[in-house]
């Protein structure tokens, strides 16, 4: 059930260069939110900027009735978020969209995260580990200092590997190199992916080659965030080989790897 909520900021602080974590007191989001779902955040009390910003649920803490958002400051909306003080009340809409799914038969899974795409994987890993899956986490970052959440995954009990573009930490290269190796080494039942588009495409390619099902979380510019404006579509294959447009906000943001059609 989507709700328009006002939530107090319990904490909002930098965790790496450009990256902030904001924790909010928000009962319905904490009790109803699922990994892979997101919220639309009103980043300013006035008309500028005009639209809300979609941000994934990063941590869902039912006991404390809080959720956290992990966001990268890339423009004025996220900058305004980063400047909002603890104690302030902000408006959110959520939980939105369809999150990641898993079944009892999935036993060994891999989570592939790039940049701020790592955010929703933390909530996902948490749930998967609660369900006693074997969770491999592959993280990509530009450079060591922009790597986020490694500790979170490790302390939960996930098996973490890291790649950095500049080689400052872990594997020197792409996170998808790690996935290639992992597919080779371990029999995976499912791969979950969230990150920049080139990474997502490569994950889809690798998993398809290996015939492993995969779920990808997509991003698109959003108007409403709830499925009303049809602003945020992605191309999805239809049976007849053609395509249709599905709403990232409502039919996604998580899609099956094989259904999405990427333009090149």
């Amino acid at each position, binding site marked *: 059930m989507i709700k*328009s909520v006002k939530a107090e900021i319990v904490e909002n602080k930098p965790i790496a260069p450009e990256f902030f974590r904001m924790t909010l007191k928000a009962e319905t989001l904490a009790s109803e939110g699922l990994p892979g779902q997101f919220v639309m955040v009103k980043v300013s009390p006035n008309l500028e*900027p*005009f639209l809300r910003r979609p941000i994934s649920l990063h941590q869902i803490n039912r006991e404390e009735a809080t959720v956290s958002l992990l966001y990268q400051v890339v423009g004025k909306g996220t900058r305004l978020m980063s400047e909002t003080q603890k104690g302030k009340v902000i408006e959110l809409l959520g939980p939105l969209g369809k999150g990641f799914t898993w079944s009892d038969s999935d036993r060994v899974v891999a989570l592939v995260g790039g940049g701020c795409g790592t955010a929703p994987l933390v909530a996902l890993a948490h749930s998967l580990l609660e369900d006693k899956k074997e969770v491999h986490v592959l993280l990509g970052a530009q450079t060591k200092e922009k790597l986020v959440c490694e500790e979170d995954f490790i302390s939960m009990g996930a098996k973490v590997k890291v790649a950095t573009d500049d080689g400052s930490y872990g594997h020197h290269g792409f996170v998808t190199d790690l996935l290639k190796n992992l597919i080779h080494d371990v029999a995976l039942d499912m791969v979950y992916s969230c990150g920049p588009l080139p990474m997502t495409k490569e994950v889809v390619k690798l998993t398809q080659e290996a015939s492993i099902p995969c779920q990808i979380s997509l991003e698109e*510019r959003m*108007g409403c965030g709830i499925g*009303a404006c049809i602003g*945020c579509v992605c191309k999805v294959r239809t049976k007849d080989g053609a395509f249709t*447009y599905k709403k990232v906000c409502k039919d996604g943001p998580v899609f099956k790897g094989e259904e999405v059609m990427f333009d090149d």
Partner: protein
Amino acid sequence: MTNLAVEVAGIKLKNPVLTASGTFGFGREFAELYDLNLLGGVMVKGTTLNPRLGNPPPRIAETPAGMLNSVGLQNPGVDYVIREEIPWLRQFDVAVIVNVSGHSFDEYAEIAARLDGVPGVDGLEINISCPNVKGGGMAFGTDPKMAAEVIKRVRSRTQLPVIAKLSPNVTDITEIARAVEAEGADAVSLINTVLGMAIDIKTRRPVLANIVGGLSGPAIKPIALRMVWQVAQTVNIPIIGMGGITTAEDAVEFLLAGATAVAIGAGNFCNPMTAPEVIKGLKNWLSQEKIDDVRELIGGLKT
């Protein structure tokens, strides 16, 4: 008791606040957020004869105090709307106005005919102003002769109230308003979006895949208000005013300028509770100003 009810083109509205076409889907999503019975009316997504895929993404760009969209009329087609959406909307005590978009005179007429007599449909809003479809849409609304012809054809195929939705992308909107009035439009709604563009300087590409899109939101409110006022001076049919409304005060401005009702478009995005908040705010403002009938405001601008 403050009266909020108004009548537009024979359609009774319990209050003068509607939701604008294309920003509210068919109401299902917002029904999760609030009781649709609160609304004066719902203007559903632009509906074409056959299903349409719309334009490629990205379809949304944010602009100062507004946004661009190039959705391009993605919709499931009129038959689906009649079968699946209208019956669902009927459960609410709210006026349902179907936004009709076409590529040819015949298409407009045919859609109107199919919707005629469908239980739960209270009126048709004829979208002759969509800036997001090539070779059609806006072209009908920027030429008075073509606008008149669309309304004439639609008029001859339906008993439903016909509301002509006007484009702001014209030299003289009163000319178009007069033309559609002459052919029997029962009301006009305005404004549709203003044609605009945004550029991503990093990629050196337009933000929208469609290159151009329709500008809406508070940025265009002054343009919309001016056009509502101009049209109100010109025609005798009622006006549904829209363009950048986000508060009850904005709604009052449109009523004073001459609108009988107003619609909330992009305002539904910046705050999904905008429509019920505008209705509540309007009620409060009226009682604070000791006005016992909202209709006193309509066209009440002193110049």
